[in-house]
């Protein structure tokens, strides 16, 4: 059983410290980790050649998603965040998406995500 959890760190160095806790004796990672980095809050603008005209506005925190095979590492708990499912990234797993959405709605039962609006007529 895998579960998705999302984390934010001060910077990449802090994230790497946490990630190093998840390496085996030979230095290989034991969990599936996706470093999202500083998430784009407002998209940048680019000219026709792809050159940046206006820089994107980035989050001040460094984001990492983990697909835990088993219980999440206790030392990661302080960095956990719960953005609205499924945020800017998700693991391609039905069970992980369901578990994250269920957990989110247990934490934020009054959120719009957990309370769909009424059906409207076409």
């Amino acid at each position, binding site marked *: 059983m895998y579960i998705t959890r999302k984390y934010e760190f001060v910077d990449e160095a802090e994230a790497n410290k946490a990630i190093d806790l998840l390496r085996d004796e030979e230095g290989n990672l034991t969990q599936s980790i996706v470093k999202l*980095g500083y998430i784009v809050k407002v998209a940048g603008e680019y000219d026709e050649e792809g050159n940046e005209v206006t820089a994107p506005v980035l989050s001040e925190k460094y984001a990492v*998603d983990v697909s835990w095979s088993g219980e999440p590492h206790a030392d990661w708990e302080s960095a956990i965040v719960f953005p609205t499912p499924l945020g*800017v*990234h998700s693991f*391609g797993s*039905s069970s992980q998406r369901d578990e994250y959405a269920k957990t989110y709605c247990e934490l934020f039962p009054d959120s719009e*995500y957990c309370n769909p609006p009424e*059906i409207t007529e076409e």
Partner: protein
Amino acid sequence: MSLYSDASLVFLPRGGAGKDGKAYSMKPVPEYGNELVTNGGFDTDSDWNITSGTDANISNGKANFVNAAKGQRIQQNFSFTANKTYKVILEVSNYTSGILGFYMGGVYAFNNVSANGIYTYYVTPVNTAEVFLRAMQTGVSHNFSIDNVSVKEVVTPSADFDFSRGSNLTATRVDSNGLIEKGRENLLENSVWDGVSTDTKPTGWSNQFLSGTGTFDVTATEGQIRFQTLDASSRAFIYSPTITTNGIVVVSVYVDEVTTAIPLSYLLSRSGSATFLFAYEDGVEINYSDNVQAGKRYSVVFNKTASTTFRFGVGTSSGTLGDVVLSRPQIEIGLVATEWITSPVGSKGFAGILEDSPRFDYSGGASCPSLLLEPSRTNILEYSEYFEDSFYIKDSGVSATSNQIISPEGLQNGSLISVGSNGRLYANHTSGTYISSVFIKEGTFSHFKISGQNVDLTTSPISVGSLDFEDYGNGWYRIYGSYTGNRGFQIQAYPDNTYSSHTDSGNYYIYGAVIEEGSYPTSYIPNHSGGSVTRNAEENTTANISSVIGQQEGTFFLDFEFLDGATAENQNWIALESEDGQSRVLFYKSAATNDLRLLITADDIGVFSKSNLVAISPNTRYKVAVRYSSGEQGVAANGSMVGVNGTSTYTRTSLLSRVKFNESNIQPSCRVHQAIVFESGLTDSELETLTS
């Protein structure tokens, strides 16, 4: 002599034998001893003892825990031997709470069962003391029943691979028909509409709405609901469970009967946060406002941005009058409805690639499959099949129309790109170094600039400049190449091979775009969301099968392809090894160069190592076999001996106990065609024959 008949372990993906969480080996055929449990079916209240509490009983053919506290046991004593392995099977039913454990000879076979099901575990007891079922959870009442308990000694173990990936929706393979197969799910719970009675909604569905003479009920056909109104102002609807999955979804339903003029938009609607995109009748695009007809399947594509409920039934404020009979509802991600998936009460339905199913892949027109083992990859391109979305920027005169042609998936979900010039279709993304790929098929135009490279689909083979390609048949090619920057997806179309600026009108088709970090393209990663998606790496190992692996002598044969074109990653370790890693017979790619290497260790002491067995290139099949016998090691590659060592003797106490295709947590990056183990050391001649 058939070498295969002498093998103790044979894994051949050509059988395509696997299920969620298992890849089956052809040999050994497992053998088990006699049944050790008496009255495992609980036919009578005998042979078992209720101990450590009184909140359990044997009745109605089952052992029952009833509001039992932690520690409650149901116990039976029978003879068994320490340090032998036993197979334990039992069935749990009527589960509502608590955790079940099974203890045998000083260890738990399991201590985490918390749902109905049939469970199989293996246990190696450390003593010959008691055997019991036990309530495990502190402060919780345990309520469940147990039946069909079986314990047998494992005489010859199974060498099937436990397989996990934890990804279904982003994992694909090429099936035996040469088509891309995805993981599919029916997001609707209870798509068979269980629990419906007169004006009572299906079990687990969120709501129902009736007004005036509106009513609904089951029909004589299982899974159908008849919705009815007797006047033009009445309604009868049922509402789906809340669908939390966002992105592109298709909602479909079969209209089996209809006696009124009801528009599709009334029969099938939704709450807010789901923008209507397209509507189809048996796959043919219609207006959402068109009336439905009997005997047709209707599907509506939405772009969902928040949680949504969907509504099925009859009646509107503008009025309809009559009956409609519906069945087989489905909500799935993607642009087109696929074959209906049954989902039971309380669960979604699943089909195709499952989260932990091994991928037996037929890429490249292979007649026999290989076991595809890939590292984790993330597709950062949003809406990888929906090019109409504004994420994909179209220069003036460029437009995209979805679902216009049969794609490499075999579905009508390829997009038509129409152009009136050499204007671009492109997407901006986070800057970096990536592998970019897209499936493309010629329309009236056959010449393109893709990521700046000239691509000509009229030559044989096609010409792609510095890019590379894979032929998917039916005119479809997957074009891919490395890219550094923030615009890895960019296509321009041309009428001829001058690739000159033009104002001609023309078109072409595309499907399935991916931008992923790495040195080579992995299998297609579908993304129907407005974010990025990840497919996890595959993990696999056999259980402890030391009894069918030679310890002081033996042979390990591997027939595989290497997928990675880079030299500094994915060492692709494939091994016979001990649980503690002290003993290894390991094939691996050098991190520095593309040569295949061999390492044999016994109790953490090097026995024999050999580099440059063969220079390996991506997507090329190699056969290697090693004789790892004490005092007589030898290794052959592709029909020739490439190394021998007659001096190293050893006595191995840390037993080789498993085969693993991603040893030491190194993410795999290969295709396995065969993996075979012999308990004896084959001769040089036999190694050469085996690897020819």
